[in-house]
């Protein structure tokens, strides 16, 4: 079998010409290493949170495929009516996202020095946290409703998946609440150590939890 060998071209070194630098991204340059020290910009946080959301998407996609396969593998799947409190919880979660967006704008304005007062920003952050906790509490109420009907984790595969999806989503919401707590803590210091990038990363995550919950609600509504 013939193999074409590409000889590397012979090259020579120039003596004193100025160096050229191309690169960055695929063809351009990462503008400067100085971004490492910037206060309000951190591409790594953004990339990191998107990568994390990608992993979460894959995880829930795997659970979804497991649910579809499990439902199709046997005749033991029992349908039941979803607890109505879930719809209230949905509204609470969506409201929390709206409030978080308001918070993000106000916090950014404060950190950039455009606004002197931080009390409104702080209030919206606390409100988001409260709404998040209310959502988790609402999910707990939904589990209690199912328990009252005699539907436990192992009662039926449909109930198994209901508990699984809602509990895992609630776990992720708790992770988001930890992130929000960090944001509040850093923002509440005398000299805030909060970065806008941190707030943005937490916001992306929180909004993604909304999208994920809407998806799960539709999935559960259709399948259970």
């Amino acid at each position, binding site marked *: 079998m013939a193999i074409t060998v590409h000889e590397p071209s012979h090259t020579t070194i120039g003596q004193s010409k100025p160096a050229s630098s191309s690169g960055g991204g695929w063809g351009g340059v990462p503008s400067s290493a100085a971004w*490492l020290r910037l206060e309000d910009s951190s591409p790594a946080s953004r990339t990191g949170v998107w990568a994390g959301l990608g992993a979460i998407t894959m995880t829930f996609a795997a659970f979804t495929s497991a649910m579809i396969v499990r439902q199709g593998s046997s005749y033991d799947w029992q349908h039941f009516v979803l607890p109505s409190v879930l719809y209230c919880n949905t509204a609470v979660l969506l409201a929390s996202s709206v409030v978080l967006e308001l918070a993000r704008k106000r916090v950014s304005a404060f950190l950039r020095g455009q606004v002197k007062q931080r009390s409104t920003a702080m209030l919206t952050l606390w409100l988001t946290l409260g709404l998040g906790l209310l959502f988790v509490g609402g999910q707990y109420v939904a589990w209690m409703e199912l328990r009252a009907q005699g539907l436990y984790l*192992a009662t039926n595969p449909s109930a198994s998946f209901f508990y699984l999806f809602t509990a895992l989503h609630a776990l992720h919401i708790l992770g988001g609440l930890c992130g929000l707590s960090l944001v509040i803590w850093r923002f509440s210091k005398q000299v805030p150590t909060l970065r806008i990038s941190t707030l943005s990363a937490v916001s992306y995550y929180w909004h993604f939890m909304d999208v994920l919950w809407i998806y799960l609600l539709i999935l559960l509504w259709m399948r259970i």
Partner: protein
Amino acid sequence: MSEPGTYPEAAPAGLIRKYVFSLNHKVIGKQYYVLSLLAVFIGTVLSWVMRIHLAWPNAAIPGVQFLSKTGAPGGMLTPEYYLQLMTMHGTLMIFFVVTTAPLAGFGNYFLPLQIGAEEMAFPRTNMMSFWVTFCAFIVALSAFFVPEGPPLSGWTAYAPLSALGQVAGPGQGTGQVLWALSIAIFCVGQLLGSINFISTTLDLRCTGMSLMRLPLSAWAWFITSCMSLTAFAVLLPACVLLILDHVAGTSFFIPSNLVVNDQLQPRGGGSALLWQHLFWFFGHPEVYIAIVPAIGIVSHVLIANMRRPLSSHRAVIYSMVTIAFLSYVVYGHHMFVSGMNPFASVAFSLPTLAITIPSTIVVLIWIGSLYGSKLRINAASLFALGFISMFVSGGVTGLFLAQPSLDIMLHATYFVVGHFHLVMAVAALFGIFAGTYFWFPKMTGRMMNETLGKIHFWLTFVGAYCIFMPFYYLGMAGNVRRYQSFVDDFMAPLMPIHKFITIAALITGFAQLIFLYNLIHSRFWGRPAPLNPWEATSLEWCTPSSPPPFDNFGGKLPVVYHDPYQYGIEGGNNDYVMQNSPEQINSARDER
């Protein structure tokens, strides 16, 4: 997650923060490497015990009785305990060695150095990922110390036997739960690590370091991290479901009307194939998670020793990306004998055959570039060459196994054992060895002993072939795998081959002590290493000291002017130009 930009300027002074709960990527990289060494030691000893038992099934193996009084009374393995050791051998080697060392070990240490960064993007997440992985390791080993021992369902933990509990055999209760818990924890560690690697590669590159200027090893770590992110995110839910089947009484993987050990199982309705789908959706990318970093490391080592770049830098990158993509659509070839629809088998067979194309492209580029080069023969380059040999010897048989009609005959035989040990396990280990011999001077400031390294290579190279090539013959002769003894059946005439393999495994295993001695002795008493002993071009060799200072580049981040592999340059004092050298090169190669 911690924030970039909060990186401290000085190393912490306390012992705990400096060496145990360190945020520094170099320490974490070394922690991963040592963890892998520990795992490979235990995994090798387990394989010795299994091999000795296979060759001399009636012999008592001294010391084994201390592992389990019921599993190995008087040092004699029971059939079940053989399978339990096999499970732990596979689990330790695959998760904690070939997944951990090439990616998390070398990647953590050298990715920031190669891209010109002072740290990983999220140092705290990085530390957490190591300690989470360490916890997974401890949980996996703890299965040895529970009554009945570790599970016997293999590293693939096929359902439904893995989901039933104690009734399925010794170790299938608590041992199996610990196994699933360990792997679930390991997945979390991998996900945290992957997020860090991806963010670091994309966002922390120094000025001038475009993606195409990344060394091939950095590319390999990046691609592997993308695979790791998506593959372990699927194994994690699979383990969660398996644990729930054990502890919560659910029935995700247990089919109806299942009779095990003469007992009709009360639960049912689940799908055993569901586990296989979820597992192998992770499992096949996992093969490439192990091998792609080794491809990157080997390319990096070879280029520095050939003193010329590969004939196509981009083709290797695109091939690795193609391999990564295809690895997700070939997983069904592990399930040809699982009762899949025959049409599905064809759909999985074709991409499996297709994945050989990018793999072949990479191999041809290596061989083509080696042809006519003045290769510097040292332990690192020898192991790189050995990697190519193992990768080809193991990979070629993948073409046989990719075809359902042949795989049905060969699937349950030693042919498959030979295939995956050569292409995945040994090849990845050769990549780890090549990386160790190559980067040791940078990691420690001392040179390894080359003579010992070469002796280590030849013993390991010949030994690996003596162990794993006969597996092919055994498989073609119909020797089934996962049996603990062959003395009383039609496979008895094959016993001399088993004895030969066992002797080879013992010798090759002991030969690794040379490596261990070289590693430890050189760490403390080795010859002091120059800053750039291999006259290499990438940024890890431009640090002001070896090992690099706490912030890698002494407070001044490098600026990159060239592609990563500027070798064979004429007209200067050296035949190479480093990536951060402002010298202009009159070369078409640099105008990418």
